[in-house]
């Protein structure tokens, strides 16, 4: 117990914060990549790549930290989730490999065919990453059939259910909107004008897919909104989120992309907070036999480890915050290409 909240719950909150950090930070990298082929000129594509080149690697580290945090704090959940999602996760990982090397390789040769090939690899892998991430998130939220050893007892075709697919598409839309807004902050002139239009369109794409997913949830998976029905005070969160979402097209229209970016970041965070509240205390719910579900209590490491992890997080997080801030500050403003650029 620390501040009257037990360690497991603390670690659940920290894990949630890390995942939100990942979704916000790598979300704009992935979104920028997913819309890459909408940019036609070599110069535009180069600027778009250089807008994320110095920082995407640091952003992806949040995924690594998240993986470590889950492994350390909730090893049973780590084991169950990744072995259950074996096939989509392998595809996700291959996507991550190609996203990384495409950024690295693209600029290394001047030939147009070389660059166009890597543009396609880059864009497709970003789309695959976003879709598979959403698919896994949707299935975690909805729950998986688990046996008494707390391991997945279905086949991988199970994941392609309507809710999983809807969340998958919504995730892609969210990232594309977020990425387009990010790129508008980093560009000028005609590329900026083009991205302004794209940001608008992806916002519509996101709102539409989000509304459909929400309606589907309310109609077909009512237990996912039990928490908010039972705790009316927490209704403030979906309300806030709705305001944030509504604020995005407003700011985009006014050309205030920094505010739009803050709003889309807040949207991502609030969405994940909602998911976390609805899921709690389950890390992986088993709808068929709830007694096999994995919770923050039956999946957790020992109290000793939880204390160590909290100390690691308390020392590490401010450090990461400081140097992430410093690096972002160094590369602030519009992209300018120099001899070190990709």
């Amino acid at each position: 117990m620390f501040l009257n909240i037990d360690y497991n719950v603390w670690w659940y909150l920290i894990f949630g914060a890390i995942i939100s950090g990942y979704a916000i930070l790598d979300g704009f990298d992935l979104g920028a990549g997913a819309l890459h082929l909408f940019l036609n000129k070599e110069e535009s594509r180069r600027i778009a790549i250089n807008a994320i080149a110095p920082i995407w690697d640091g952003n992806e580290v949040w995924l690594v930290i998240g993986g470590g945090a889950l492994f350390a704090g909730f090893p049973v959940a780590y084991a169950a989730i990744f072995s259950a999602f074996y096939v989509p996760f392998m595809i996700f990982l291959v996507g991550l490999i190609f996203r990384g090397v495409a950024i690295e390789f693209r600029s290394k040769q001047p030939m147009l065919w070389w660059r166009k090939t890597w543009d396609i690899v880059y864009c497709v892998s970003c789309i695959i990453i976003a879709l598979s991430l959403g698919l896994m998130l949707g299935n975690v939220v909805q729950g998986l059939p688990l046996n008494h050893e707390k391991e997945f007892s279905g086949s991988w075709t199970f994941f392609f259910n309507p809710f999983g697919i809807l969340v998958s598409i919504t995730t892609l839309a969210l990232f594309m909107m977020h990425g387009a807004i990010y790129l508008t902050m980093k560009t000028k002139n005609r590329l900026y004008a083009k991205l302004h239009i794209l940001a608008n369109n992806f916002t519509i794409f996101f709102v539409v897919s989000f509304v459909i997913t929400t309606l589907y949830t309310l109609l077909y998976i009512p237990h996912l909104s039990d928490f908010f029905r039972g705790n009316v005070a927490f209704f403030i969160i979906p309300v806030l989120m709705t305001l944030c979402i509504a604020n995005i097209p407003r700011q985009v229209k006014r050309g205030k992309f920094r505010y739009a970016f803050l709003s889309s970041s807040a949207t991502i965070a609030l969405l994940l907070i909602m998911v976390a509240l609805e899921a709690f205390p389950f890390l992986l719910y088993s709808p068929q036999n709830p007694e096999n579900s994995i919770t923050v209590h039956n999946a957790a490491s020992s109290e000793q480890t939880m204390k160590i992890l909290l100390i690691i997080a308390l020392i590490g997080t401010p450090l990461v915050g400081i140097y992430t801030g410093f690096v972002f500050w160094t590369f602030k403003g519009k992209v300018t290409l120099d001899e070190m650029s990709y």
Partner: protein
Amino acid sequence: MDVEILARIQFAFTIAFHYIYPPLSIGLGLILVIMEGMYLKTGKKIFEHATRFWIRIFALIFGIGVATGIIMEFEFGTNWATYSKYVGDIFGSALAAEGIFAFALESGFLGILIFGWNRVSPIVHFISTILVFFGSLFSAVWIVVANSWQQTPAGFHIVGEGMNARAEITDFWAMVFNPSSVDRLLHVWIAAILAGAFMVLSVNAWYILKKKHLDIAKPSFKIALVVATIFSLLQLVTGHHSSKGVAKYQPAKLAAMEGHYDSSAKADMFLLGYVDAKKQKAKGLFIPGGLSFLVYGNFDEPVKGLNAFKPDERPSQVNAVFQFYHMMVACGMIMILLSLIGTFLWWKKKLFDKNWLLIVFVWSVLLPQIANQAGWFTAEMGRQPWVVYGLLRTSDALSKSVTANQVVFSLILFTIVYIVLFALFLFLLNKKITQGPVDYESKELIDEGSKRDNPIMSH
């Protein structure tokens, strides 16, 4: 094939491929710190050009290292779920610490290292280079601690029984400083530094042979030669220390390394040979009683042999462990020999006169790579049949919900992807090396032309 062997092949393949890159990042990191430090101290352009050249190579290597490394973190969960549950309490905290203390530092400042040359002051850039180097050193710390805990578990107790048994931390620092951590970490660090040093030696030896970029190649070669000489000799010390630790804590592994079966006899040390598993004897060229001497300082002292262990509690691939171990030692010895010859000739002022030596140095980049791989194969195969020594068998560590078909699918996927990656890596590395260091001062001239054909802009 069964899931166990497939999962082991997949893990070995993905980690072996990944492990080409991180040691190079660590080693080149040190070289970059030295070169950039020399640049700041002397202000000489040649050091600037050398630094910026190696930054570009570093970026390529680091990129593939990150891309292939992320697989590793999740493979524990995908393929080794039972293992993950068993060790999560311990291994997980090391991994979390690695992410937050090492990778975040490394990846954060990498952006400044690669893209920041004109954006931050030289001193801030230098500090970023140092921080990236430190980040890479730290990343080795936590993963080696975690792996060492699997070799020599300490600071824990077992909770639960049968399939629900798992290890829990009782003493964090005892876990971190388990009996093999420090020896193995130093051994891994130095091996990584050698990987970087020999790469710089190799590339510059090639330039010198081709009479290209001589003003940069010669000093760079000398810097790397100093590093190689110091660290290849130091590696002898950590290697010796490490083997004594293996003798004490993992006698079955040590016995397999030298193919030693009979516990009542003195143990020989082989230079070359093979293990005849049927006759339970190693054959080849050896120093009688050499291993006894190495461990106990006495040529006649008996060493615990493989026969002292039940057949199902000792490594099944004794010959493989034997060969990998000797391959590592042989590469290490050749590195020492090469660095000493180089240093001697430098002292005689004839360092760059011998073409045959430069040719050998061009190929020497493979030595630390082979030694690194062989060393890890020795450590991991020598630990079998255990995944956590004496506690958890590899065969019990698998994910139960994952089928052989799924592993075949991912194994094929990774094989194709990694072959493509490796080919591209060699192609681009070769291009960069052929292009050589670039004089950024004259870039205005080149800028006048088409951007697309500009070798600098297309870096």
